[in-house]
């Protein structure tokens, strides 16, 4: 591969990741469409590169959240039992699913992300002081507290089995498409578990690394990860996510949000067209 292409991959990933970070979104969702549609990289190679960048971004951004006491590490590891199981299922399915369906599934996830961004995420009403699910959450001591404006706010984890089921789906999609699946984790954590928004964001980001490690490890050993592509993409994503977090405050307004919705919808349409094109155009592996 042309070494200059590596520099190009680095720059593109940096841009995508910085833009994603500005809106508090994971960059993974942009990496695969950009690599396949603009740089004409095979979708499986793109997914392999993207999943490594998902790990890199998760690990690279976790420390400040851990130090601030926002990550519920006990809950994270409990939910990781099903996210990694989902990832394992995804690894098994990835070899069987035709490329065209991967494009179409990706288009659906992009459309879902656009819808979620449009709906704007709010603090769930009546966030969790009642203790209705004492069973699992109690036995595993998952209820905790987090610091907010100098005070400790206690919260309880609700409906753990439902949350774990949704996390299985998130792990599956993450492995199949090489994304962090924030779009599926956020509803699981906000709606099923009813976590405070800060805890849910920090814990979700912390979990993504382990979920992605299961699929990335399998793809790496299987030989589906091309180092010359995955390396520059991961590096660009880490640098981009650090930059994006810094400009988050400055530009996050209504207009950029709408711009992103438009970009997501456009990418969704393009991916869907590619998918149906492959479907109709016969074999083009």
């Amino acid at each position, binding site marked *: 591969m042309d070494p200059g292409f590596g520099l190009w991959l680095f720059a593109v990933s940096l841009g995508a990741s910085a833009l994603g970070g500005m809106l508090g979104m994971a960059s993974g969702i942009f990496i695969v469409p950009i690599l396949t549609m603009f740089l004409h990289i095979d979708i499986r190679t793109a997914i392999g590169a993207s999943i490594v960048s998902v790990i*890199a971004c998760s690990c690279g951004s976790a420390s400040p959240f851990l130090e601030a006491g926002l990550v519920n590490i006990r809950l994270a590891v409990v939910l990781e039992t099903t996210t990694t199981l989902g990832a394992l299922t995804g690894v098994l399915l990835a070899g069987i699913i035709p490329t065209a369906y991967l494009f179409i599934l990706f288009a659906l996830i992009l459309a879902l992300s656009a819808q979620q961004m449009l709906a704007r995420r709010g603090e769930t009403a009546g966030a969790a002081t009642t203790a209705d699910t004492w069973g699992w959450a109690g036995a595993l001591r998952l209820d905790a507290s987090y610091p907010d404006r100098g005070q400790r706010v206690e919260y309880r984890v609700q409906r753990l089995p439902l949350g774990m089921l949704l996390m299985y789906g998130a792990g599956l999609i993450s492995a199949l498409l090489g994304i962090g699946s924030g779009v599926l984790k956020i509803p699981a954590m906000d709606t099923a578990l009813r976590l405070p928004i800060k805890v849910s964001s920090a814990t979700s980001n912390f979990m993504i690394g382990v979920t992605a490690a299961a699929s990335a490890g*399998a793809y790496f050993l299987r030989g589906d990860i091309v*180092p010359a592509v995955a*390396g520059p993409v*991961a*590096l660009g994503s880490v640098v981009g996510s650090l930059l994006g977090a810094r400009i988050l405050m400055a530009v996050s307004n209504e207009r950029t949000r709408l711009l992103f919705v438009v970009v997501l919808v456009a990418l969704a349409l393009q991916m869907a067209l590619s998918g149906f094109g492959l479907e109709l155009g016969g074999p083009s592996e």
Partner: protein
Amino acid sequence: MSKETVKAPQPEWLLAALLRYGTWLASGVTGLGVAMSLVGVEGTQVIAAGVALFIALPVLRLLVMLGAFILGRDYRLVIVTTVVLVTILAALVIGLSFSKPLAH
């Protein structure tokens, strides 16, 4: 209000340090490989090592958590963490059993 009195030392700070310096190390190795390729030296194996470090980092983080739960005699969480590690191991075994030569 129940204050927990019996609690292991908080592993958060250890995990934060591991992930911070681990990311630096993996990025450094990957960057070195990319730079080698740019100046015309064969760097693919170095990049592959960097990528492998990135993938290993979350697994190390689970091992640190396992250690913390063992020290805290939190046996339910020890079992939970072991289940996650075994699942990842199973994924690796599946990957290996379908392995093909490293692509360039």
